[in-house]
């Protein structure tokens, strides 16, 4: 849909990563991500999905290749939701969510206003004063998403954020996430094990093959937004899931 435009928001060019212990995690990853795209990355365990996100986040440096941006991002331009909620257990939820703003020394009053608004948006207004241990798994994940969005990032990286949640909570959070994405127009890279989740959310699916990690297929998903429960029984949704599943099975077979 997008992404094929002249100036991609973000581009990985021949990114290769060999870890110090010799593991070749990624080979020659080339991928252009358009502004405002919602990218789903699917692939078997260990094929390098997390490693791609960590490269984009700047947490690891590629062994070869490079990552270019259409324009330099300000601090807080990239938000990340990890597989675990990764909250500071000693800090209240509102302090956890405010952390990125505190680190950037955003004035307290402005930061608090933004945190309050976001907590309301993710449905945690009543838990601002709570400590993480007092929240359920899904609520912690919401707090983690609020924290990732609090800097109003241009790019949101999500690494299997809902993998540990039950199906109902997961679908609810998927809908909430889509609403936030449509409202704030950030670019999203969403790693998931679930083809159904990926297709439900994204407008483009990247299928990865393992050992060494590489891109096996790049599948546009031209299902219309807004997406809701009705989509799950839509024939086009089923067809898209089938296409991605087949590509995934193919990628695994190639590796075996």
């Amino acid at each position, binding site marked *: 849909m997008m992404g094929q435009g002249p100036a991609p928001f973000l581009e990985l060019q021949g990114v290769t990563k060999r870890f110090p212990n010799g593991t070749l995690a990624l080979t020659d990853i080339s991928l252009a991500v358009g502004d405002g795209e919602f990218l789903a990355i699917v692939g078997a365990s260990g094929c390098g999905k997390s490693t791609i996100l*960590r490269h984009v*986040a*700047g*947490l690891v440096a590629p062994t070869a290749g490079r990552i270019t941006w259409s324009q330099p991002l300000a*601090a*807080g331009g*990239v938000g*990340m939701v*990890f597989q*675990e909620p*990764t909250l*500071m*257990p*000693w*800090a209240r939820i509102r302090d956890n969510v405010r*952390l*990125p703003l*505190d*680190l*950037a020394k955003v004035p307290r009053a402005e930061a608090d206003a933004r945190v309050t608004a976001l907590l309301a948006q993710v449905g945690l207004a009543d838990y601002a004063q709570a*400590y*993480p*241990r007092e929240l359920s798994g899904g609520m912690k994940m919401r707090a983690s998403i609020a924290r990732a969005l609090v*800097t109003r990032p241009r790019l949101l990286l999500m690494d299997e954020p809902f993998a540990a949640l039950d199906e109902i909570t997961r679908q609810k959070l998927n809908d909430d996430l889509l609403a936030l994405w449509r409202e704030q127009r950030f670019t999203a890279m969403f790693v998931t094990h679930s083809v159904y989740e990926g297709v439900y959310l994204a407008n483009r699916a990247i299928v990865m093959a393992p050992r060494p990690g590489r891109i096996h297929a790049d599948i546009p998903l031209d299902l219309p937004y807004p997406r809701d429960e009705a989509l799950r029984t839509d024939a086009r949704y089923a067809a898209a899931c089938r296409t991605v599943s087949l590509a995934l099975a193919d990628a695994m077979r190639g590796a075996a």
Partner: protein
Amino acid sequence: MSALRRLAPVILGMIVLAAWEGLVRLLAVPAFVLPPPSAVVAALLADPNTLGLSLWFTLTVTLQAFALAVTGGVALAILFTRSPLLASALYPYAVILQVTPVMAIAPLLLVWVGYERVDLAQLILAWIVAFFPILGNTTLGLRSADAGLRDLFRLYGASKWQVLWRLELPSALPYLLAGMKISGGLALIGAVVAEFVAGSGTGSGLAWRIVDASNRLNTPRMFAALALLSLLGIAIFALLSLVQRLALRRWHDSEASHP
């Protein structure tokens, strides 16, 4: 049920004291071998000023050593985690200091600081004993900060100072508090041992009272000084436990899991 459980040690103590008193009287055990509890209380009340002053002196040395151990231990732990080179250079010597019996260092230390500054020698000896749990625990705690949170701080370009202040120190707090509980008791032990081996300086602590009473075969007074030492140790432990509970109860599993 829980009230009974809380009272259980007190009741047991009363029974033991009563039995002790009764048996000593019944068997007419001489007071210099084993005084009855009443005689110990009498010895305490006979000379409350001297014993109180000694208690104060021991308390002062203990608290000074403890405070220095905490500040020094935390500061060195921070330094260790900033500079791996410094850590590997210094750590073996910290261990040597720790494993060498403090009694064995005392005479040497006395020569170095001078016999006219026994107080200082006592303080240093107590500090050496109390220091290591703080250093070890805090170093471990600073390093144990969650890797995911470290990534998060990096993602947002946190400075080293921000990482230390907002991530590493809070992560280390449970470890530090556990270390302080051990260290508080050790500071008292250190202060007493130091007085035994280094002797008394300007003031006389409880250890000296015990040696003195022992020389005079005044066993009730020995017990009185001993009881004060125990009370001091219990008070330090209870206070640090309270601090630990207050600091951790809302968020840390070790304290928060108590109903």
